[in-house]
C-alpha cells in the first residue's frame, strides 16, 4: 500500500482487496443518518396539516329527536357538515321497502340504513355523494325529487325516501354516519 502523503486525495486512500474503502462506511453512515433525519423532519411537517385536537374533539354531536313529527326532518351539524334526521311516514317506509334492492346503484335496504326498532328514524349526512352540495327535501316545501326523498339541485341527483341514490350522477347513497340511541329520544352521532 502506498503511504498517504500530506496531499492525499480520496483516490489515494487505503483500499482493501475487494475494492471497499474504509471511507465507504463513513459515506453510507452519514447519508443514512441524514436520510433518517430528513424523514423525521418530514413527518411532523405533514402531520401538522391533519385535523388538530380541538377539531377532533368536536367530532361528536347529540340530537334530540323527540319533537320530529312523521314526515318531518331536522338539520343538525356533525363535523361542520349538515346532518339530516327524518322521521318517515308509514307510506314512505312502505315505498322504500317496495323497491327491490338488487335494482339499485348502491344496494341497501331501509333496514340496513336504520337502527333496529327505530326503522322510522333515518339519519343521513346532508351531503350529496356526487360533489358535496346540500340536497333539498329536508325543510318543509323543498323539492323532494322524483322519488320523494332528497334532490340535489347542483347536478340533479335524486334520492328516495331511504336516502338512496336513484337517478343522477351521485355514485352512492347518502352516507349514514355512525350513531346510536342513547335513549328513546336522543341520538349521539360520531
Amino acid at each position, binding site marked *: 500500500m502506498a503511504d498517504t*502523503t*500530506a*496531499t492525499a*486525495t*480520496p483516490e489515494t486512500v487505503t483500499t482493501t482487496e475487494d475494492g471497499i474503502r474504509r471511507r465507504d462506511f463513513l459515506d453510507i453512515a*452519514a447519508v443514512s443518518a*441524514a436520510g433518517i*433525519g430528513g424523514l423525521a423532519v418530514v413527518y*411532523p*411537517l405533514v*402531520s*401538522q*396539516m*391533519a385535523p*388538530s*385536537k*380541538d*377539531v377532533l374533539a368536536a367530532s361528536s354531536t347529540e340530537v334530540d329527536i323527540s319533537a320530529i313529527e312523521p314526515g318531518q326532518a331536522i338539520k343538525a351539524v356533525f363535523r361542520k357538515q349538515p346532518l339530516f334526521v327524518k322521521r318517515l311516514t308509514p307510506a314512505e317506509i312502505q315505498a322504500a321497502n317496495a323497491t327491490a334492492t338488487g335494482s339499485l346503484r348502491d344496494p341497501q335496504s331501509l333496514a340496513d340504513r336504520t337502527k333496529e326498532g327505530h326503522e322510522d328514524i333515518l339519519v343521513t349526512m346532508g351531503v350529496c355523494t356526487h360533489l358535496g352540495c346540500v340536497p333539498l327535501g329536508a325543510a318543509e316545501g323543498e323539492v323532494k325529487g322524483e322519488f320523494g326523498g332528497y334532490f340535489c339541485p347542483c347536478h340533479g341527483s335524486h334520492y328516495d325516501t331511504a336516502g338512496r341514490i336513484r337517478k343522477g350522477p351521485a355514485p352512492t347513497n347518502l352516507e349514514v354516519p355512525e350513531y346510536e340511541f342513547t335513549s328513546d329520544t336522543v341520538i349521539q352521532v360520531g
Partner: protein
Amino acid sequence: MSFPWARQYEPKNGLTKFLDEKLPLPRLVYNAVGAGYPVPRNLSYFWNFGVLAGFFLVVQIVTGVVLAMHYAANAQVAFATTEHIMRDVNWGWLMRYAHANGASFFFIVVYLHIFRGLFYSSYKAPREMIWLLGVVIFLLMMATAFMGYVLPWGQMSFWGAKVITGLFGAIPLVGEPIQVWLLGGFAPDNAALNRFFSLHFLLPFVIAGVVILHIWALHIPGSSNPTGVEIKSESDTVPFHPYYTAKDGFGLGIALLLYFALVFFMPNALGHPDNYIEANPLSTPAHIVPEWYFWPFYAILRAFTVDFLIVPAKLMGVIAMFASILLWFFLPWLDKSPVRSGHYRPLFRKFFWFGLIPAMAVLFVCGGAPAEEPFVILSQIATAYYFLHFLVILPIVSSVEKPEPLPYSITEAVLGSDKKVVKGENTSPAV
C-alpha cells in the same frame, strides 16, 4: 469567479443534456456549490457560518409558513391561536419552538459570520459589495425578527411594539405622525398586528432575494481565507465539492445538535415568561427587554440620558442606535490597511480583542439589564468606545501599523516552504 482551472460541467445523460440546453440549472449548481467552484484550501470553521445562516433562513421560512397556516393575525384571537398551535395542532409546539429558537440560532450564526468578516476584514476590496449586501440582510433580519416577536400578542410583544415604534416618535416635528401612521392607531392594536404579520411573511423572501445577490457577489472574487492572501494558482484551491460540502455538512451537524438541544430541552430559555400573558394595553411589565439579539443596540439606545445642545436625549439615542449599524456600510473605506487578516495586523488585533470585543460584550450585558447604575455608565463608556473604534481608531491604526510578513501564497501558508510544494506537484501523476 471561474478560475481557469475550474472543472467544467459535462452533462452525462440525456436528461442533463436536455436541461443544459434549455435551463442549465445543474450547471449552475455545479459551478456554485459543486466541483466546478474552486475554493481556498485553507478555510477554517469560521467559513461555515454563511452556509449555516442560509440553512437557518430555510428553517425559518419552512416553520414560519407552517405557523401561518394555524395562526390568525387578529388582536382578538392572536394570543389564543398561538396557544392553539401549542396545544391542539399536531406537532404545533415543535413548529413554534423551532421557529422561535430558529430565530435565535439565525442571529447566532449571523453574528459569528459578521465577526469573521470583521476580524479577517472580508469587507475589503474586491469584496465590498458582498459586505454591503450583508449589512442590508442584517437590517432586514432585525426588522423581520422584531415584527415576528409582536405576533404572539403577549405582554412583551405588545410593549416591544410600543417601545420600538416609539423610537420614530423621537424624530423632530414629523415623529408623532409617523408613529401613528406606522401603527395605524395611537397604540399597537389590530391594524398594527395585521400589517406586522403581512410584512413578517413578506420580508423573509426579500431576505432570500438579497441572499442570492450576496452569494452572486461572493462568487465573482471567490471566498477570502484566513491568511487574506488572494488565490494565485490551482494549488491554492480545492473544489467546493466534496471538500467544503463535507466540511459544511459536519458544521451543520454540530449546529443542529446545539439547536435541537435548545428546542427540545430548554425551548423557553431565551424567551420571556411575560410573553405568555396576553397583551394588556393598561399594564406594562416591570422589566421590558427585547430579545437577546437586540441587546447591544438597545444598550446604545439607552446610553443617551442627557440632552446635547438642542438635540434631546431620546433623539440622540435613536440616531446612535441606527448609526451603530449604518456605519458598517462605510467600513470598507474606514479600514485603510492593505492587509486583510487580523492574524498579520498586530495593532489592529490588540484593539479588536481588547477594545471592540469587550465593548460589545459590555453592551450586550447592559442591554439585557435594567436601566440603572452601574449599567447606564458602563453602556455609555462602551458606546463611546464602539464609535471611537470604527470612526477614529480603525482609520488611524490601519494607516500607521506595520503588518507582519504575509505568506507568499495560500499553499505556502498551509504546507510551509514553497520548494516542497513544487516538488510535490512534480511527483504527482495527476498534474
